[in-house]
């Protein structure tokens, strides 16, 4: 997808880690916090765990993201154990030689339970728990499959290196070798084996990668992205007989911090889009429990040359053109959207590539949401463009506000 050139503008999107419940009420009046629900879903379990026990290290003992980070690579691709939460996040749009389109998602989360294990000599003694999500979308076959798993560090079962990117949860892994990132995942009939090479420099969010999330000093995280990764490799879907050679574009985020979530939102609608004229677009709307849209909802345009342009909520107009009701959960999701950003002269229509890309994680987290590959068309700076990317819709199968 060489048409998705990205300008280096800052993407104003913030994420939060887990936080203790008692601090939440203090936060309510403060600046609303935005986040990507796919992370919070997985972390819910551990956020509760932290609330449920006093034996675990209290939040104060964790390092807070209060000062600008001195970035050193490849060291900072590795883990930062002094911070409580950390994730490595990959999504991508792929196609094979017959131009059949696919989408994938591979995510690793590290959640610390305690600042140190009780018995350091015993590898089973818990400090961090690693969680991971893996999803594949087969656009032409209209198939979607997702998996999730978790593991403690154990005797080499999961973990992340400290000096470079090498993160794994059982046999799902992301490893950086010679400037390329190697992704591997296998579960059931689905496998993924990709090599990702960055075509753009690293994009730091917030103040040199310190991304603020709330009014208080510590409510921040460190956050950078590789937005344009040339991707080649093979995948095997549950519906294909053999491995498929694919190529395409991937997106990588890495973020770490020690802060917690808020609970005053119902759900989120999030878009990460590649326009065929080379612009990338990220739009993020937070729906509040009173029906209003969070003022901090925002977006970013990354221009073809890599420059970025911040968008406020007021700059973005989103209209739902059609909806889809899940036969499993009964949730009614918006499916077709019209997205207009007059300031950037963007007017596009979007629809899912596969209608049903709903994740029902009853076996693990119990939260149901929609996340998947989307495509559309429209105009960008008065020229016709095609659009491709990922969309995430949460809080439709029951409000998340109470849960979070």
């Amino acid at each position, binding site marked *: 997808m060489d048409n998705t050139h990205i300008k280096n503008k800052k993407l104003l999107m913030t994420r939060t880690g887990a936080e203790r419940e008692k601090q939440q009420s203090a936060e309510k009046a403060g600046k609303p916090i935005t986040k990507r629900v796919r992370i919070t879903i997985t972390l819910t379990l551990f956020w509760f765990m*932290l609330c*449920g026990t006093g*034996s675990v290290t209290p939040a104060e003992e964790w390092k807070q993201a209060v000062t600008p980070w001195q970035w050193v690579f490849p060291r900072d691709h590795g883990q930062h154990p002094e911070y409580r939460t950390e994730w490595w996040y990959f999504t991508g749009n792929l196609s094979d030689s017959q131009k059949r389109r696919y989408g994938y998602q591979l995510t690793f989360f590290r959640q610390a339970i305690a600042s140190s294990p009780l018995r350091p000599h015993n590898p089973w003694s818990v400090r961090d728990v690693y969680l991971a999500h893996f999803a594949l979308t087969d656009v032409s076959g209209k198939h979607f499959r997702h998996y999730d798993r978790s593991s403690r560090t154990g005797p080499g079962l999961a973990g992340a290196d400290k000096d470079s990117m090498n993160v794994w949860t059982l046999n799902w892994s992301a490893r950086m070798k010679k400037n390329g990132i190697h992704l591997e995942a296998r579960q059931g009939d689905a496998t993924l084996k990709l090599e990702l090479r960055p075509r753009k420099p690293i994009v730091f969010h917030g103040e040199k990668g310190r991304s603020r999330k709330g009014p208080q000093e510590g409510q921040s995280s460190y956050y950078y992205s590789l937005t344009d990764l040339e991707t080649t490799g093979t995948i095997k879907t549950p519906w294909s007989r053999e491995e498929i050679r694919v190529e395409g574009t991937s997106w990588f985020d890495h973020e770490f911090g020690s802060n917690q979530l808020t609970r005053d939102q119902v759900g989120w609608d999030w878009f990460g889009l590649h326009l065929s004229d080379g612009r990338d677009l990220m739009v993020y709307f937070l729906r509040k429990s009173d029906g209003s849209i969070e003022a901090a909802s925002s977006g970013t345009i990354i221009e073809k040359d890599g420059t970025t342009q911040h968008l406020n909520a007021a700059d973005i107009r989103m209209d739902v053109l059609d909806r889809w009701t899940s036969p499993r959960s009964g949730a009614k999701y918006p499916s077709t959207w019209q997205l207009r950003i007059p300031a950037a002269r963007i007017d596009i229509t979007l629809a899912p590539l596969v209608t049903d890309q709903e994740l029902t994680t009853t076996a693990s987290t119990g939260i149901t949401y929609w996340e998947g590959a989307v495509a559309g068309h429209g105009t960008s700076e008065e020229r016709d463009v095609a659009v491709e990317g990922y969309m995430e819709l949460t809080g439709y199968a029951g409000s998340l506000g109470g*849960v979070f």
Partner: protein
Amino acid sequence: MRVVTKSFLRYLLKRRSLSVLQLLGIACGVAAVVGMTLSAGSALSSFAQAVEFLRGKSTHVIERPAGPMEEKILKNLMNDPAIEAFSPVLDRQVRIESGDTVRLLGIDPFLDRVVRPELGYTPSAGDSSGRLGQFVDFLRKERSVLIENGLAAQLGVQPGSIIPTSKGDLYVLGLFPNPSGEPLLLMDIGHAQELLGLSGQVDRVDLILRDETGFRTRWSEGYRIQSHRQRKETLVAMLSAFRLNLEALSLLALFVGVFLIYNTSMFAVVSRRRDAGILRSLGTYRKEIVLAFLMEIMLFGIVGGALGGVLGYLLSRFLTGLLGNTITNLYFFLRPAAPAWSNWIVLAGSFLGCGASLLGGFLPLQELVRLDPVEALSGRAASRKAEKKTWHVALVGFCIIALGIALLLMSFVHVYVGFAGIFIFLLGIALVTGALLILIGPALKWVLYHLGGLPGKIAAGNIRRNLGRTSVAVSAFMVALALSIGLGAMIGSFRQSLLWWMNTQLRGDLYISTITDTQVPEDFYREVLAIPGLGGVDPFRNVQVTYKDTQISVTSVDASVLQRYTRFGWLRGGNENWDGVKSGAVIISESFFRRFKVKEGSTVTLEGINGPETLKVQAVFYDYTTEHGLVMMDRATYLRLYNDRTINSLGIFIDPGNPRRQELLEEVRRRARLRGLPILTRNQLQGNILTLFDSTFAVTRSMRVMAIVVAFFGISGALLTLFIERRRDFGIYRALGFSTSQIAVMTLLEGLGMGIVSFLLSTVTGTALAIMLIKVINLRSFNWTIFYYPAWQPYVLTGAVALCASIGAALYPIWKVRRTYPQMQIREE
């Protein structure tokens, strides 16, 4: 209801006491079978359920051939493409305060929830924060466990409670349901390692495999990979001999039951002869009479059987516990759930009762079919004819005995053939009883005459005269007593053999940690070795390994120590056999030798950590520890083969002449106490083994009691019928001037006479039975030789039972006579 049928069934009401006895007899016979079947079924299904439940979704298991496995291989397993999911498990036992052992599973909840989602200890987002907190505690809090509901109820614990165990206090975090009913504790694998002192080790890894063939090619050497089907089969096969024994026991009970029904049906026919004659004279068809009688015995079968079903169910609740203990003692931990009540039990009982009634009533029915109405009406019992018939029957009996013995000799085909032989043998003996009674007649007359004078003489005459009835009663009673003697003598001989065996092998002065749930740390072994002056220390290790797809035991010992201090019972040779063991050969148990037909001087091939290894068989020794076969080797050989350094127990040997003997013993004790290791003297250990032995025969003993109870009802019913039949005679005796007490003596002596004859016959039959059980059944099903030790106890015990039963059975008629004697007249009914 047809009047004909009514005329028959009215008897049941008219002779209520007799009917009750008959019903109880059938009920007890059926109860024995139902109880045994239900509890055996329950034990086996509980076992299968426990295996299934803990299996979860896993398809295979990988483990070391012996001993635990290093956890570092998990990382390799994780990357194996054939594996869909895996879960490491530490599977051990802890002893709780009551002395029971409870299974403790150490698991990793993250990995395990894929393999065993139904355990449900991992919380999900919908759960309360308390449950999530519990999960974090499970991961973070040492010594914390989740406890299975049943065990929690049994111990009366709830979240927050503390369970004291042999490994220290455990904290209960929460409860979880376990449909298999097996008492279970779950612990985080890391905490379990710390608790059990097994850092870096797991017992096995449960796998969900996608590609078994591929996986096996990569992991064949040094590991044992079993599919769950194989594993279950292996485990179930371990129970097969045990199960067979249970089946045989319940069949024995049924055999006695059928015999009793035959007995009672025969009496029924005898007492209906005259009525049948009248009915025939009135123009009733033969088949109508037969049908009416059939109805009567079927009614008995149905009602008695239904009652037996209920009793059997109650019995099974008791037996299930016994069975669980026995299986736990002998094989693996099992606490079977008591069988659930179902109305089908009553139906099955009725069905069984009917079947037994038909079987038992077959011959009596023939009798009725052949009834001569003229004879029946005239009341001529044609005693000469009966005697002639008795000889015919005896002849048939001898043929059947011969057949039984022939089958016993053919038991090498299958042990069932042996059992069939025993049954047929007993049947044959029962048929010969009538003839024996005739032969014994004069002697009995002499005995009873000297016991009770004229009434005694008449009593003996009565037994002889009513041969048709008495011989049936005597044979039924004899069979039951013979069973009692046979089982008793067999158990006694086994016990004696065990005592002998213990004195050959367990000759240590002290034994440290002989309990299955504990281990001796290797450094303690070295510490004890270093004590100067000790004669020898034997580090004992026993593991289950797979040999030719079955489970056998491998035992590691110190050959030189045992050579010096023990006197093994060798099939051939003496203690010089140890020389070979010291240089790498093995010795095998008799059960191994018989089961796998492996002879002295040949070889066995065991899967070791470095692949298969062929070992020379030096000698064969007598052993009763396992019927599945045992291979014993020196510790050096064992370590080379399995690299498993676990030690289960230490045997301490001190030369008897050592002047510092007491001092040394005290020193060893002191050091063991410091480590918290249990210490047993030789006598204590042997006592424990005997207790174990006795508890394993609890089921057999209860079946023996059942047989006697059934027999008691049988003999009582038989005697009662006899006396009721002869009420007219009592009138005659009264007319002749017999006093009430003389009649009482006569009745008593008649009962006693039958008891004595039954007992005498049963001593011979019982001894024969014991020898058959020892030489054929045990050898065939357990592959070991029990030496026959004659003992008086079973005979005395059974004799006492016979005495009590026969006297007890005579008491009711005596009471009845005392009450009605003054009114008795010589009159026809």
